[in-house]
């Protein structure tokens, strides 16, 4: 297998909003190596979240291509793209988006259940992941009974449930205070050290500082792309 886990070629995304054509992403080409930790930064509205959505297959490019592990995900049907995300990509969102009706461990079990993993294995892995993110005692708590930082830890555990090669995170520290944000940065670094490729979109300089590579965007294009370590 190639060292490149993801390749985006001349990605463009245009859409109409209020009668005007918005060119959110205007020709981005990007290669991400296996095991890399990439931060995409830039001012609000520069297209970084749209780029992340395109890379994760939850949005389709107007033109260009996205290849992950040899699969052109921009050409997959909706159902196939969903299946692909289930097995290969983990998502973490700024607002956590845990299922409020489910407990912490059930939230982690959700993608595993979708992947038809037997219940006993799901529970075992769920507990392992909770321990990994430092919340083994909170497995029976619902999201509303957890703090923001705890919810984001559960969200990271959920994203890792099916052992994806790629973890995409959109402003994962955006709703957290400084201390919890720092803990989150450490957790993501740990996840990366344990072998998961991470692409994170952020305004948080500390979080960007923890990445190996920082991609700067402005007006839908990459204006700077440099490796930090």
């Amino acid at each position, binding site marked *: 297998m190639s060292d490149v886990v993801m390749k985006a070629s001349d990605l463009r995304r245009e859409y109409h909003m209020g009668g005007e054509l918005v060119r959110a992403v205007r020709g981005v080409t990007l290669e991400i190596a296996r095991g890399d930790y990439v931060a995409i930064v830039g001012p609000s509205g520069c297209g970084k979240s749209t780029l992340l959505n395109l890379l994760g297959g939850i949005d389709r490019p107007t033109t260009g291509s996205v290849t992950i592990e040899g699969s052109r995900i921009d050409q997959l049907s909706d159902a196939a793209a969903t299946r692909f995300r289930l097995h290969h990509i983990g998502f973490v969102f*700024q607002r956590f988006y845990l299922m409020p009706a*489910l407990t912490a461990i059930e939230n982690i079990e959700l993608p595993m259940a979708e992947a038809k993993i037997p219940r006993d294995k799901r529970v075992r892995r769920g507990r392992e992941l909770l321990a990994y993110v430092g919340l083994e005692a909170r497995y029976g708590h619902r999201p509303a009974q957890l703090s923001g930082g705890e919810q984001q830890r559960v969200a990271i555990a959920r994203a890792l449930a099916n052992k994806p090669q790629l973890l995409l995170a959109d402003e994962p520290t955006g709703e957290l205070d400084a201390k919890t944000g720092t803990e989150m940065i450490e957790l993501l670094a740990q996840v990366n050290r344990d072998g998961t490729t991470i692409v994170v979109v952020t305004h948080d300089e500390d979080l960007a500082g923890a990445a190996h590579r920082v991609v700067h965007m402005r007006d839908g294009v990459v204006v700077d792309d440099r490796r930090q370590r």
Partner: protein
Amino acid sequence: MLLRLAWATLTRHRSRTLLAILGVAVSAAMLLDMVMLSSGMRASFRTLLLSRGFQLRLAPKGTLPFDTDATIPDASGVMRVLRTIPGVTTVSPVLGGQLHIVRGARTIAATALGVDPAVQGDYEITQGRAPASPLELVASDDFLRASGARIGDTLSAASGYDAQLRSFSGQRVLTIVGRAHFLYMPAEQRAVAIPLATLQQMQPGPATQNRDHVSLFMVKAREGEPVDSVLRRIETALPRVSAISTETAMRQVDERLSYFRQLALILGAVSLAVGFLLVTTLVTVSVNERLGEIVVMRAIGVARGRIVLQIVIEGIAIMVSGALGGLGLGLVTARYLNSILASFPGLPAAIDFFLFEPHDAWFALGLLTVAGILAGIYPSWRGASLPIAVTLREEAVG
């Protein structure tokens, strides 16, 4: 996990879910009642007609049994003809009339049936015995209550009352030998049954008048013999009578009580629509509230069909829980509504407008389940088909 998520979502808003279940229960109760009403009357009437095994009724030409005062003349001759018709096993003649029973200073009017006690199909003895001699009678509970008479008492009964002379005609002294439940009589009907010949002789008119007439013959066909063929043979042999099969009688009842069937259909449809609207509203609002969750489930790889299924399960769960609650409620309200309609004038008291049969419950449950599925499909499909990226952005703003 799908079921767990559906359950967890429903229990998350307990009061909302309970109210929806309660609303569906009332709709389901109404639906069940209406399903029972639409089929109950027919089933109950059919059971009543066939309860004593008589499949055919013979009435004067062009009339229905006891629908008019018309009678069939030459009853003995008709009986003789009937007994010669192949397939006829039992013939029960019935004459309807009015008797005035004198109790002290009071006169009690009662509906009288003249029957052949050996083959009659109009009543069931609940106490005592059937009349064995010409001057014996059996009476209904209501008659005994109204007259204060008991089994063994003798009564003075007359078939006619001349208002001008204030005198009775066709008077006999009769002995009460039994208490009977009259199958085809309306509720609270004071009724007596006496041997046919006695009632015929009591009829007013000159002594020379031919009193050999009856209101009705009830006929049993031999087992295995097609009733329609027997009916055709009777009509050929006796052109001056109308032979009425159970089916024809059912059609007549259907015609007269079509209002209730149609009302049942309309109210049943309205109940179903109300239940459907309730669940659709609930599921739509629930989906709208959870758009973020739904698109995130899609983002983390949960298939659209599974999300739709999970939301549809929520709709079905509300419908089925409501329907199960509605079953009990429906049976209680059916009893209440039946007690109202039981006082419908002229109908046999034994007719149940609301007759519970298990297939009614299954039918109502099936309809509600289908409604639950339909109620969940559109909002869930709409929710699960939203573009993930756009919806997440809007959710983040909203």
